[in-house]
């Protein structure tokens, strides 16, 4: 979001409290949503539940196109639409709900750095596996992405998106990597997260922050999504404290409130 737009949104946000009818939009859960989008969506849902803010999840086939920035998920609150975790955190902060107020400067720096680590490594790895690994693309991604559309639109859109993601991978230097190397990177990232978490219940002590929401979103999705092989899932499973972390958050924030 541009600076001016952000300032405007913050001002508008501060004016009203969080309404009861806030909705979160994402693609269809059963047959359309992809790994990376599902991870981002769970991250936002976890964050909002941690803040105690009520939100309804609505699945729409064209969620990607409704979103103001083109990314999933986005929330519709009052008369504003905000997408992606970063802006949503700012938005809820403007309304007076924040999870990271209790952190000091050094901890906040670490939190931001680890969030970037997850975005840089885990999210990119998810995108790579789902769009640049031929087996996954042909067996899973292409038919899921184009599910709501008829032939030939489903193929055209899928190829277009694949081409776009491939260009991005080349730009950031991941173009020449093999899937094995990407799995290694995921392991490295999980190891770093596992080290940081240690034996604490959350990353910064006893209370969750947006970093916990983000990590939960990604790890939970990897652990529960069926891909062509279980390599990715196994790599994450080898870190037991991360597994119990995901389970704990799922039980605390999702099971009790789910209908």
């Amino acid at each position, binding site marked *: 979001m*541009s*600076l*001016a737009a952000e300032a405007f949104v913050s001002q508008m946000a501060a004016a009203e409290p969080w309404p009861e009818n806030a909705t979160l939009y994402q693609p269809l859960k059963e047959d359309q949503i992809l790994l990376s989008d599902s991870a981002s969506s769970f991250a936002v849902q976890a964050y909002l539940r941690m803040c105690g803010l009520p939100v309804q999840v609505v699945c729409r086939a064209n969620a990607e196109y409704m979103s103001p*920035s*083109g*990314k999933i998920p986005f929330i519709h609150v009052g008369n504003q639409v905000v997408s992606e975790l970063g802006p949503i955190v700012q938005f809820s902060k403007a309304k007076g709900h924040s999870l990271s107020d209790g952190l000091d*400067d*050094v901890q*906040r*720096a*670490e939190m*931001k*750095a*680890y969030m*970037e*680590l997850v*975005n*840089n*490594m885990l999210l990119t790895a998810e995108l790579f596996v789902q769009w640049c690994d031929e087996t996954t693309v042909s067996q899973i991604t292409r038919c899921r992405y184009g599910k709501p559309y008829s032939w030939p639109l489903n193929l055209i859109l899928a190829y277009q998106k694949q081409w776009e993601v491939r*260009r*991005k991978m080349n*730009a*950031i*230097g991941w173009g*020449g990597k093999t899937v094995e190397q990407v799995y290694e990177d995921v392991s*490295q*990232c999980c*190891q*770093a*997260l596992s*080290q*940081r978490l*240690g034996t604490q219940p959350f990353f910064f002590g006893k209370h969750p922050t947006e970093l916990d929401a983000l990590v939960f979103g990604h790890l939970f999705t990897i652990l529960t999504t069926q891909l062509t092989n279980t390599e990715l899932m196994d790599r994450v499973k080898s870190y037991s404290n991360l597994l119990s972390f995901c389970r704990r958050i799922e039980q605390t924030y999702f099971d009790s409130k789910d209908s």
Partner: protein
Amino acid sequence: MAAPDELFCWEGDWGLPSVSTDCLVVLAYAQFAGAPLKVRKICNPWRSPSGSLPAFRTSQKETLSRTSDIIIHLRKQKFNADYDLSAKEGADSLAFISLMEEKLRPALIYAFWIEPKNYVDVTRRWFAEHMPFPLNFFLPGRMQSQQLEKLRLLQGDERLEAGEELEKELFRDATECMDLLSQRLGSQKFFFGDSPSSLDAYVFGHLAPILRCKLPNGKLQQHLRSLDNLTNFCSNILLLYFPRDGRDGCSQKSPPQPEAGDFDNVPNKRRKQLLSALVALGAMLSYALLTGIVSIQHIQQEALEEPPDPEDIRSHEEEGDG
């Protein structure tokens, strides 16, 4: 004994061993880990084994281009600057490196390659002056389009253009990142104690060009200068690990601007202009004399008292020509 590994990197300037961030990261890491590298500073990316710089040729003739791959290779050769780090410090390294890649790198690309004044006055000029003929005509332009493409893909916006709003957004992220790095560094000499690690190499590689290169639009430099601990950190590394390059930079300040700032920096401009004018005048005069358009007459003393006859003059001319 196998041949040592070779590193091809961009030349240096402004007191730095190299002008490119990636090259600086690899050079710094090699110095920290004590790796014996044969460094070849070139200005022609087509001469590098991979077509781009930095390029690392191992003793087994394999070529690596990504900085992370090069550092992993050096670690495998037992040149590990992160040996003393605890597991948590290693994790923090990874996190802060990601932070810099996401927040600081786009602003660097913008400041050096996309911002119009900076690109025309500094970046393009530097590359055009240092590259060999005929690459200097088209390669800087091509590099700029590549960097713009990269920035567009990083930001996820296909229609990104240089502009004030984009600049504000990128620089805001970059200043926030620099503040976070400054907070993490605190008053320590290096990020993890007394000996430098790979995170120090990455931070140095990103911040040194901002600190040393004098850009017309220098907002990033201003902000960096206000963070004393980061400024001292960079200067410290230059002093300790790159003394030769640092000294050259200090003795040679940014080239003195001529009075007319827009003029190209051609030496002895006035003298050359005067010489060219004289040569042209001489050529024209000799042509005129030789073809008879102008002639020099020797007028006798008596003839000066009366106005000369036009016929007399014509006959004198004929005599003169003959």
